């Protein structure tokens, strides 16, 4: 057992009593099983293939603080104003791993939608939660999922009943506000009933981040014909360590769309697993990363076609500046019975300096014979012919580069279906590419903190 694995196991043993105090029986069992699996499989090191490039054990601190009680209520709406105009989201906040609420830990809306604390949902609706929580085989998922399952504090629970189309997007804001080195493990569960639909905007930010280590797991369960759009924004400071697992199960004709946008990161790794369990399910997975300095952004995308006639698309694009590093690992697995699968995967990158690094591994694993699949990756600079063409019409080199870089990034932003969010992100991408960072003055998130507004893509190098 590596020292950090041992540390986590000890942390569990020391805190298990307090942590599981309010747990109903099945949750306490889950945690015990999970810590056993974690102890056996261990904390990620460079010996694990999927962690080979940036072994996590070399990035963690020796010790972390585990916040074992919820944050006292903070009037978040007084200090947190999202600048995305007219977005009209319903906002819910997690702080240092705990659901923050003013009135009720679990709200049932008039339309039947339920949103609130996962721990509270486990107590009040144990059967509903039990049917969807921890559905993944911990031997097959990343060991950090087991770590989360053993020691998670709280998270957001969302339930949308059958045939309900929720128009107003839900904004999940996860904040780290401690100066201490916190270990934050949110566990979120989102359940959509038959023919239900929902959009989520998930903002991951830090206000006064000590060297926090966040290891979140979000499980998403989509019943027949359910449709979910999941937009994920990363805006963390350089010292942060954020691992995010998104585990999706889709039934017949379910549709899942995700868009992972990373503008600032310390060490950010997003691992999306989509199981297309029944026929005609569809997954569209998009990602954009614009990183610089010593940042590290890592996207692992795994789509498992388990049934016939499912479709999936992966398109990830990135611009990597300075000494930043990006990693893309895309894996499509087509099971033997998953005939008539259509699965596509593309990763495109532009590196701006000789030191910027991108590692890309597009990967297909196909056991069915009647499939349509493709994969590909490119790493390069901007197209010289296009640059020449733009300049030959009087556009200076700098602006020509900006136009092309913006066009490159915008292909991802364009997939966002929420208009106000799309406009805001278009604006942020433009500013970022021009070398000005977009300020959200009214937002408590760290993007209003001058110390972090230092990104610049030096367009002369593109």
């Amino acid at each position, binding site marked *: 057992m590596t020292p950090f694995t041992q540390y986590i196991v000890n942390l569990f043993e020391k805190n298990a009593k307090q942590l599981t105090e309010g747990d109903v029986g099945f949750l306490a069992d889950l945690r015990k099983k999970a810590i056993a699996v974690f102890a056996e499989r261990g904390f990620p090191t460079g010996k694990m293939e999927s962690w080979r490039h940036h072994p996590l054990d070399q990035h963690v601190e020796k010790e972390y603080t585990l916040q074992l009680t919820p944050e006292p209520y903070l009037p978040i709406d007084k200090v947190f104003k999202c600048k995305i105009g007219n977005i009209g989201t319903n906002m819910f906040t997690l702080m240092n791993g705990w659901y923050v609420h003013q009135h009720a830990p679990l709200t049932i809306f008039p339309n039947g939608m339920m949103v609130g604390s996962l721990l509270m949902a486990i107590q009040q609706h144990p059967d509903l939660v039990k049917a969807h929580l921890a559905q993944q085989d911990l031997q097959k998922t990343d060991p950090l999922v087991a770590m989360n399952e053993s020691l998670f504090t709280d998270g957001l629970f969302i339930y949308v009943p059958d045939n309900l189309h929720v128009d107003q997007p839900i904004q999940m804001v996860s904040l780290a506000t401690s100066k201490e080195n916190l270990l934050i493990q949110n566990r979120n569960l989102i359940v959509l009933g038959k023919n239900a639909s929902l959009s989520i905007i998930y903002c991951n930010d830090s206000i006064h981040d000590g060297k926090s280590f966040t290891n979140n797991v979000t499980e998403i369960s989509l019943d027949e014909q359910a449709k979910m759009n999941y937009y994920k924004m990363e805006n963390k400071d350089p010292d942060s360590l954020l691992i995010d697992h998104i585990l999706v199960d889709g039934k017949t004709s379910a549709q899942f769309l995700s868009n992972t946008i990373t503008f600032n990161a310390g060490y950010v790794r997003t691992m999306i697993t989509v199981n297309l369990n029944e026929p005609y399910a569809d997954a569209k997975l998009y990602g954009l990363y614009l990183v610089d300095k010593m940042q590290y952004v890592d996207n692992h995308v795994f789509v498992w076609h388990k049934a016939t006639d499912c479709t999936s698309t992966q398109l990830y694009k990135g611009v990597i500046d300075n000494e930043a590093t990006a990693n893309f690992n895309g894996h499509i697995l087509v099971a033997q019975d998953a005939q008539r699968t259509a699965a596509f995967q593309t990763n495109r990158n532009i590196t701006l300096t000789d030191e910027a690094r991108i590692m890309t591994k597009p990967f297909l694993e196909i056991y069915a014979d009647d499939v349509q699949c493709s994969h590909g990756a490119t790493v390069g600079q901007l197209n010289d012919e296009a640059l*020449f*063409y733009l300049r030959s019409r009087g556009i200076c080199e700098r*602006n020509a580069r900006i136009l092309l870089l913006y066009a490159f990034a915008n292909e991802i932003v364009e997939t966002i279906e929420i208009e106000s969010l799309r406009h805001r992100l278009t604006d942020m991408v433009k500013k970022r590419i021009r070398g000005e960072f977009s300020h959200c003055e009214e937002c408590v998130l760290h993007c209003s903190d001058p110390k972090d507004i230092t990104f610049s893509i030096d367009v002369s190098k593109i």
Partner: protein
Amino acid sequence: MLLKIENLHVSIHGKEILKGFNLEVDRGEVHAIMGPNGTGKSTLAAVIAGKEVFDVTKGSITYKGKDLLAMSIEERAREGIFIGFQYPVEIPGVSIANFMRTALNEIRQYRGEEPLTAAQFLRLMEEKKKVVELTAKLSDRSVNEGFSGGEKKKNEIFQMAMLEPKLAILDETDSGLDIDALRVVANGVNQLRSPENAIIVITHYQRLLDYIVPDKVHVLYDGKIVKSGTKELALELEEKGYDWIKKEYEQGKLT
């Protein structure tokens, strides 16, 4: 004189393409440069545009009395040079409207003029679309992406109409066009002719010159102009082909 090219020698990767090229073009004139494949016609257009892969080893290009070769690519455009490319590049994600607005406002800024407002720009764009009978909504379409050969060439002439160059060089604008598209493109060019500007048409065929009637016709062979004449020279070439030119050149009758 608007453009004066003297004894121009140009190489690419060590191979000499233009070998002592001379040409003078004044305002209000239309010149046609004809010649067989591989004689340097497109090289000439690329060198005037400022394409960096070509090495000018000897000679000069003077434009409006200035040394053209000392100017950057964008400076040439801002000074009024326009190249209608033979193979316009596709630029996914950059809308034609955004492209033209950026270009036009940079040119205006260079001339010390105010940028156009969005409304002014849109009005201008609608007006210029008529020159080549463009009907597509240009704010939605990426530059040349998914365009047919004809649409690409129309788009080149549309850009010429928008930017109102002093010197336009149209490099095989007729290639890949059917008869109808050829007529539209040629009509567009004719509408843009004025006593203030000059046009150089590079082509293989006389067909285009039925529509865009040149003041002078030059034959480019072996990297230099070996014969010049009026529009009748183009007709003669159409009838007799280029073999007699090659023969006379090899016999030393042309220089």
